[in-house]
């Protein structure tokens, strides 16, 4: 199933790129349209040959996908093809992955205690306040939150650096990623908190919670030891599914904080009509997304002993 899906996704992406856009134009710019000039015609012929554009679409797809699987993602259209797409992405992917992991880590670490606090005081003041807060965080678009946090914590308070600098040592770079991580993590935390809070409240009404109380188990221990795990199922699913949305969010965040990851690379490539780069990034992101969903199923079997497959 996952293989079929990946095949469909890649074919669709590749097809859309080649049918909706004009690869030749994107490589050569206005020259591609200038067929009267023999110099241009020569260039067009060369480009067609170089990029296999004279072959039919399915063959081009076959060539591209076999290259992609082997780790050869082709040549950039812009910047004279240097560095090759694979090299470019090798340098940029780790930054985005770091940012996403940091964001998810912040989201999970913030949302679990937050949900426990809310659920244990359901409908009290703290709970109502936190529900209102989650509502606002969800309604705040990522780029708006990025600018607000940047303004407050980087510009006004000066706690964090304004932008990312690729040449700084690792520790410094991780610190520079912290504020962007919060921009990604906080809205996700709000979503997780709402979900986990609801599930916790449902779990807390279960008979086995009353049973645990009747054994003399303390309230914090009931929350952590008895209620949390049975409430985690949809939480884990949503954490997995949200990773995809976070990739979208990271595009904006990378742009605001000037982090050269794949998100900002994608935007630059789109603005420059550099299709091999766009294609490679979209494919990598979609593949990651599909694989994450597979992973959720595996995690399920680990946390729920009742699931046997």
């Amino acid at each position: 199933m996952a293989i079929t899906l990946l095949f469909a996704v890649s074919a669709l992406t590749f097809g859309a790129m080649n049918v909706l856009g004009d690869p030749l134009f994107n490589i050569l710019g206005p020259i591609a349209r200038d067929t009267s000039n023999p110099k241009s015609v020569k260039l067009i012929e060369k480009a067609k040959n170089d990029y296999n554009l004279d072959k039919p679409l399915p063959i081009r797809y076959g060539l591209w996908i076999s290259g992609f699987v082997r780790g050869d993602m082709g040549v950039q259209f812009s910047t004279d093809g240097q560095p090759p797409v694979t090299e470019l992405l090798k340098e940029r992917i780790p930054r985005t992955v770091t940012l996403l992991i940091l964001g998810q880590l912040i989201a999970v670490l913030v949302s679990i205690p937050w949900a426990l606090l809310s659920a244990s005081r359901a409908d009290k003041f703290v709970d109502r306040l936190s529900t209102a807060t989650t509502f606002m965080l969800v309604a705040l678009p990522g780029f708006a939150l990025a600018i607000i946090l940047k303004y407050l914590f980087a510009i006004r308070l000066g706690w964090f650096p304004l932008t990312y600098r690729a040449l700084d040592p690792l520790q410094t770079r991780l610190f520079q990623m912290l504020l962007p991580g919060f921009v990604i993590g906080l809205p996700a935390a709000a979503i997780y908190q709402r979900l986990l809070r609801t599930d916790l409240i449902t779990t807390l009404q279960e008979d086995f919670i009353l049973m645990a109380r009747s054994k003399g188990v303390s309230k914090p221990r009931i929350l952590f030891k008895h209620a949390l795990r049975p409430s985690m199922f949809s939480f884990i699913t949503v954490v997995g599914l949200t990773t995809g949305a976070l990739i979208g969010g990271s595009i904006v965040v990378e742009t605001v904080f000037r982090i050269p990851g794949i998100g900002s690379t994608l935007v630059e490539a789109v603005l420059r009509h550099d299709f091999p780069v766009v294609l490679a990034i979209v494919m990598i992101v979609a593949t990651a997304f599909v694989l994450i969903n597979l992973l959720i199923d595996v995690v399920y079997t680990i946390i729920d002993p009742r699931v046997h497959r």
Partner: protein
Amino acid sequence: MSELQTEMRQEHQPLLEVTDLRTHFRTERGLVRAVDGVSLTLERGKCLGIVGESGSGKTVLSRSLMGLLPSSNTVTSGSVKFEGKEILGLPSKQMRRLWGREMSMVFQNPMTSLNPLMKIGQQIAEPLNLHLDMSRADARATAERLLRDVRIPEATRRLDQYPHELSGGMRQRAMIAIALACGPTLLFADEPTTALDVTVQAQILQLIGEQRRDRNMSVVLVTHDLGVVAGHTDEIAVMYGGKLVEKAPTSVLFAHMKMPYTMSLMRSIPKLEDPSHTRLATIPGRPPDLVHPPKGCRFAPRCAYARDKCITEEPPLRQAEDPNHSYACWYPVGSPEFNQREAELNSGAVPVTLEAR
């Protein structure tokens, strides 16, 4: 105070003494009087059966006694003394020392009352760790012994199994093992057999009885089935609409029941000697609305023997011939009025009319 004195004092006082207990819930519809003025006592080592239909307040009563109800919308008043100490209204921080250690509860549905994601062994060991400060290994050994006590075969293997891997009866045994873990002096069993097969029911009741004798523990057995309590209790309290309507030692109650309600409950037990497909007598109507309970006797609207007085005036709890037997009825079973109506009913002279509800 020396230990001897403490022991002597305890000899003279009942384990549990309940006076005029009221438990009301604030709801959107109004105040639900789930338990409305219940008084009873329970001696050490004895078994008290609390019997009533669903909605009679028996589950709420047992949970109020143990202090397990959520505090947010519950109002309780009256007094619950455990070993002479007032425990009603104690914050759960203090109740927690009693829960599991001095008093524990076996719930109705073992499937939902055991934590589905925790191994049986862990669930038994938890109170041992908490209350008796046992090491992990000791707790595990004790848990295994407890599983043997409640006759679960292959106890060692069961420790590492999850509830869904056990049968219904075994789950209930496991729950009893958890409740017994710290050797409580008082065990509440709330419909412990309702979710089980008939054959398993008897075994579970037997098990509770044995453990009670072995441990000199008191048991409060809550059930809707008068047949269940008959052979396993020393005393029975019948509840209706949040009130105690009849209370007597088991043998006295079955010999001289006074309340028509108790009688109806009795008639709804299927008997072995009945030919198969005998229609069971059922109690017509529904339990009373506990937000607006009837003015007089709460059972009057459903009682075939009710007269005008029953509808207007609430009967007090009165003593019967036996000093330990009390009941709340104006025209109890055996009274002239009761006999007269009984005769009319049998002859078909008076149609059974029920107030439309």
